[in-house]
């Protein structure tokens, strides 16, 4: 356990060192950009829209009991932007991209492709890990913004079209309670989730051993560890965000 933790810290430190100066081969970044960003957009749109819609249904149900159903707007937008958007996007990227990163690097490890890079005098941290971390950390905030927008749109559609809440009132209430700080915390969280997913998944792949079953085991561990780290770190980042809002923003 302690050996694994020290190896992870060493790997994370090596990742930071390998980012500066960045590896200058455009094709490596482009491939990651397509895999992490472009190909993830459809799933982000589908999940974001349905999360927003279900949030509208749940909020309307509870608020109608209190007779304040016309206030659902901000209660969809704020949690969507500061909590659900970043978390749901991160979990989707973890499942779709993180597991694939572990599988690819794990296979490269057990088939000696990573050793081959070393033999050519090429640092695999720079060529394999750094591009993945940079692209994942940069694109997760962008995907989160897309998810937020489609989620808010889904919530608005259900509230206005299905529950017949006045659209202008809905928008006015949303603007009234919605703060740019919510967007900032959501994007900051997404950035950290991107770092967590890419570093943990690359680490588990990089140190895979034991053939196909070993790679499978690494993927399972990468997904579980990243999932727990996302949920736990979200709580702490929310607390820090709350503290900053109370003391410096409000």
């Amino acid at each position, binding site marked *: 356990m302690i050996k694994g933790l020290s190896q992870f810290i060493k790997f994370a430190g090596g990742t930071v060192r390998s980012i500066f100066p960045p590896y200058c081969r455009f094709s490596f970044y482009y*491939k990651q950009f397509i895999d992490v960003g472009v190909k993830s957009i459809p799933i982000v749109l589908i999940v974001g829209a349905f999360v927003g819609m279900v949030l509208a249904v749940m909020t309307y149900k509870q608020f109608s009991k209190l007779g304040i159903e016309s206030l659902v707007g901000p209660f969809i937008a704020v949690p969507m932007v500061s909590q659900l958007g970043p978390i749901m996007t991160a979990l989707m990227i973890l499942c779709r991209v993180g597991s694939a990163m572990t599988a690819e690097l794990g296979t490269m490890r057990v088939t*000696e*492709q990573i*050793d*081959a890079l070393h033999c*050519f005098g090429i640092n695999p941290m720079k060529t394999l890990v750094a591009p993945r971390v940079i692209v994942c950390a940069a694109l997760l905030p962008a995907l989160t913004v897309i998810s937020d927008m489609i989620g808010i749109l889904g919530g608005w559609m259900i509230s206005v079209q299905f529950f017949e809440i006045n659209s202008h009132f809905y928008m006015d209430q949303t603007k009234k309670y919605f703060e740019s700080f919510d967007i900032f915390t959501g994007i900051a969280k997404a950035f950290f989730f991107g770092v967590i997913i890419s570093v943990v998944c690359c680490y588990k792949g990089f140190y895979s051993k034991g053939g196909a079953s070993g790679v499978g085991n690494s993927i399972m561990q990468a997904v579980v560890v990243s999932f727990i780290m996302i949920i736990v770190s979200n709580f702490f980042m929310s607390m820090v965000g709350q503290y900053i809002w109370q003391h410096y923003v409000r």
Partner: protein
Amino acid sequence: MLDNSSYIEMKGVHKEFDGLKVLKGLDLEVKKGETLVIIGGSGTGKSVMIKLMIGLYQPTSGSVKFCGKSWDELSSHEADITRQKFGYVFQGGALFDSLNIKENVAFPLREHTSKSEDEIDGIVKTCLANVGLFDIEHKFPSQISGGMQKRVSLARALSLRPEILLYDEPTTGLDPVNSQKINKLIVEMNESRSVTSIVVTHDMQSALYVADKIVMLYQGHLIFQGSTAELLQSEVEETRKFIEPSLIHVRRK
């Protein structure tokens, strides 16, 4: 083209993996321009030996030096630069499966040289032709046979014109014609370019053909070091057991 300078030096090398002792105190010297063949049974640690020589593994105790410098004295960056002098032919090929054959062979050239694409194209074609491969540049590793993958791996190792070549089972899985082609290439590299070669193999015909010096690894120890002639006359029981089956060509009925 041998000279007396020690190129690779292993002194008192022990290597353990999770408590399992693989190498138990190896002493070995490889001279510049020499072709050394490492023989031994499966799982005796032959591949571990050459991975120690290129600094992919660090010994549990003892030292491995290349050109008088121990690998553990070098920084990661210095080790990367030093490794550019090596070519390594992996047992399973270790081709990058996301790249096609041309990109695989061109990979070290693109990373370490400023050659134009036309020059790289020419080198890739020549290296592939040297190992008997033509018109496969646009195929991916998964689209060619294991034997071809191994030959592409050799072509890739040759692309940077290394000073020292490490071959891990270069002829295993190849047909006799291509095995002999690889054997001739190893000898040619040594004779025309003074490349130092270290060959790990089970194939005794190949070993006897290419070797200047043969060592035999048995239960973590080097039980034989000498020339091919000395190997054939060796009275060591384990050595005889290992080489005799390969000297019997036809079983009489």
